[in-house]
Each structure stands twice: as C-alpha cells, then as structure tokens.
C-alpha cells in the first residue's frame, strides 16, 4: 500500500505541523518505507487475541484531587510566568478564529 502526498499533507495538518515541499516528499518516502515494513503484521493470525492496552495488569487507582502547595511558594505565579505570553493573572494566547489583536 502506498501513501500519497495529499495524505501526508492531511496527516501533517492533523498533527498541527507545516511541511515544506521538500519535507513533504521526504516524509512521503519515509512513510512508505516504514509502513511497508510494519505491514508484515498482516501475516499474524490475531483471531480471538485480547488487545494488550498497557504494560501492567494494574487496575485504575484513585486518589483525592486535592490542592498541594510547596511551602511558602507562589506556585500559581511560577507556572503562569512560564508561558511565553501572559498577564499577571492569565496565560494569553490567540483566538481560535482570528487574531483578536488585529
């Protein structure tokens, strides 16, 4: 099975990535090679096999959803200030529909 340039473009969009034409061609080539390799799984008879969804047999574990605070630290401010654009109170970003600032 071979993947088209259009499909690679669609996948890049879904993954929120932009590719140049050159990158697109390289991605298409690599995809076809890698997918050609993983296609060997179609040989395996998996009838009646339960999918393995993780590496452990542990069941979901719950804990209380409580606020933790490292003593004397302004954790909130510290996290907000990591954002490339922020006010004192909020992380800022651009509107999903248009740039509200233009």
């Amino acid at each position, binding site marked *: 099975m071979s*993947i088209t340039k259009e499909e690679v473009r669609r996948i890049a969009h*879904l993954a929120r*990535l932009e590719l140049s034409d050159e990158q697109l061609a390289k991605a298409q080539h690599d995809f076809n090679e890698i997918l050609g390799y*993983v296609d*060997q*799984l179609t040989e395996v008879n998996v009838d009646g096999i339960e999918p393995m969804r*993780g590496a452990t047999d542990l069941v979901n574990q719950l804990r209380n959803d409580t606020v933790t605070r490292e003593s004397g630290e302004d954790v909130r401010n510290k996290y907000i200030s990591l954002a490339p654009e922020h006010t004192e109170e909020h992380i800022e970003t651009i509107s999903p529909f*248009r740039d509200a600032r233009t």
Partner: protein
Amino acid sequence: MSISDLTIKELRDKLESKALSAKEVADFYIDRITKYDKELNSFLTVVDNLKVSGKGPLAGIPIAIKDVIVTKGIRSTGGSKILENYIPPYSATVIKKMDKAGYTLLGKTNCDEFAQGSSNENSAFGPVKNPWEMSRVAGGSSGGSAVAVAADLCHVALGTDTGGSIRMPAGWCGVVGIKPTYGRVSRYGVMAMASSLDQVGVFARRVDDTREVLSVIEGKDSLDCTSSTRATGDMRVDSLEGVRVGVPEEYFAEGLDLEVEGVIRDGINTMKELGAEVKEISLPYSKYALATYYIIMPAEVSSNMGRYDGIRYGESEIQNSKFKIQNLEEIYKINRSEFLGEEVKRRIMLGTYVLSAGYYDQYYARAQKVRRLIRQDFEKAFKQVDVIAGPVAPTPAFRLGEKTDDPLQMYLSDIYTVPVNLAGLPALSVPAGFTKDNLPVGMHLIGKWWEDNKLLDIAEHFEIATEHYKKKPTL
C-alpha cells in the same frame, strides 16, 4: 585507585571515614567534565555550586541525570529546541527520592530529542560521541548518560528506556545499564514519550551501583498510577550454578554482526562454565516486535507530543513579526514546526496516521493484539528459564551520520531491545567483551517480571567472572 573505580559502597565508606570529602569527589568529576566533555558533548547543563552536603545512602555521590527528567530550578531541555530555556518549577519523583538520599546532582545529560532515537544524533544540541572512538555514535537515546559513566564524568547516571534507550548506549559504551520492570519506578516528572513503554533506569560501571540507586528510586508513587507496590524480591542468587539461561534462536538470526555474535556466544559459554544450564529457546513472535513497536510507540508519541505547542511553556514565535499569525491553529503549527526536530515530527505524523479514522483497526488495534502474543512468548519461556541472554544490538556502534538519512535502517538497531518494553520486562546490558577494533559489546540479559534483583545478581556473577569493567576508553 581512582575515585571512579570505587563502588558506591566503597565510596560511602571512604566518605564516612573522612578518607575523602564529598567536595573532593565532586571536584574529581567536574575537572574531568571540563577536560573531556567539550568533545564528548555528554552534558547539556553542568550544575553551578554543587550541593555536596546531603545525608543518606547516596550522600556525596555525584549523579548525572538524563535531560528528559525534570529538575526543579535546573534547566531541563529534553534535548529539544522547544524547551531550550525551560526551567522546571518542580522535580520528578525520582529526583525527590535521590535528594532525600543525599545525592549530588552533577548535571543534565544529552539525549535524543524527547528520548526519540537510537544513536543520540537527534539531539537539538548535537550528537554525543562514543569515548571508545570519537567518530562513532554513543547509542541512544540516553547516550549522554552512558558516555558520562563510560568516560568517568560522573559516578552513576539515570536514563530512560522506551525501546532500548538505556541498554543500547550502555552496550555500545561498555557500561552497565538496566531498565527495570515496567511500574517499578515512577514516571512522574519524566517527559513522556510512549507512556506504556517508558521506564526510568540506571547506568553505572558496576552492577552493584545500579542496585544501590534503584533501591532509592523505586516504589509506588501516588502521582504515577502505573507505578506498583509490588516488591522486586530479595531472593538472592548465590552463584550461576544451576541458573537456567535461555538463548532464543531468533536473537541470533540474519542481520547479526558475526563479531558481535562471537562475543555473545563466548559470554554464554562463560556462564555455562560457571555452572549455568544453557537452553535453546524460541520466541516465535519476536520477529514482529519491531513492527509492533513502530505502531504503538508513535501512536503514544503523537498523543504525548501534543503538549508542546508553545502556549503554556517553551519556545514560541508568538511575538515574531515575521509570522503574520491569524489564529490559534497557526501558532500551534508555527511553534511545532519551528522548534521540534525531524524525527519527532516523523513519529508524531506516523502516530497520527495509524490512529486516524480508517486505519486504526488495520494498524493500532492489530499491533495491540500482536503485543499480547509477544508477551505470551515470554510467559512460556520463563516457565523453562530464569533469564534470557542474547546481544543488545545487532552491530557495534556505527559511525556518526551513517544511518541518519534512512530511518528504517536506524530503527532496525532496536530489534532485540523493543520486545522487552512491549512485554514490560526488566532487562540490562552488561559488558561482554570487545570487537577486534576495540568497540564494546553488551550482553543483553532479560529477567522475569518483578525479578529485577535476581537479574542483577545473575549479571553480577558474570561481571565479576569476566571483569570487563576494568577496561576503560583512552581519552
């Protein structure tokens, strides 16, 4: 005898008896980093004003940490441009535990971007070089940690292993590297790559030192619900007498370098001479492990990498007037395209593809079923044997740049290590010898679930009998 030749226990004795001070020990390593790391490139950050006053079982032991493990107040890039200036506001659970045990944090080690790579050539900050031959790769993705131990730039180091990222560089650099049973060590504060496969582990020159560090970092953590309360057993293996060693025919098939095969076969013979009972076994589904891995891993990667969008933290082009950014989608695309590397993008897209409508059943759902068959292979094998032995990688370390243009060839380096992560088993690489060109070869030993300590004992008997740890690279 040099400081770096001492085990943690010996070093602890010398520190307690004041034959050495923690400052002397730290200075020994800092001096070597200054002297040798410009070329090796194993550290991304070296800590200023080292804290050497800790108390506890790791007091005064200088440890290097793979840069995907976050350290409060100390830059943690994960090998990525997008986190080039990221100073975490919190520490990973393993770091908190080592802090309590008094360790000295020496610095953060280079790695493939977000642990994605087999050769450490995918770091945004340049490749790590192999101290045995500078023109060769260190192995990835925890290459910096492996090299820092191999070149005596730290006493021990932490790494992470998703598909072989501890064992492979350990093998290619001639040190010990263990990936514990999935769930033994908390993943909280470790930049996630593929969450059902990732596990934190340890590099050291000696098996016993990995045991010392694991005993500090292991255990249930309420912040990682995949960490387990299960104990790894204190069953000791006094000798290799009667230990059943399984040798899977599939691990010696086509593609294995003849010299590597020779070294590993010799190593297995040594175990036999020490009393081990060597059995031929078969893991028939292991030939599908790499294909299964290259579906499941990118699927998880594509989801885990979603957080890197440059909105809440990390680098952003939001203020760059070159881009006329109109909406949120555009800033996501611009930040991710500008600051993520080629391999990370490739895996995000592969994962997006195998999870997308119309392809999910064909790829992801099928791979999860084959994953179960791979696990069942091991369940059967461990009814007959105590440990499985084979090569860590099909070749010795290759040359820098040799495989960077051909992702599939690069992926094939992981062929013996990925089955272990898919099954969640503990496994390690212990030095087994050298090729004619003096490149190290690692023996891959795989243990049964939660029998990490037994695995370490078996590896230690091999280590003590062969003494390959005594040979060091000339820098």
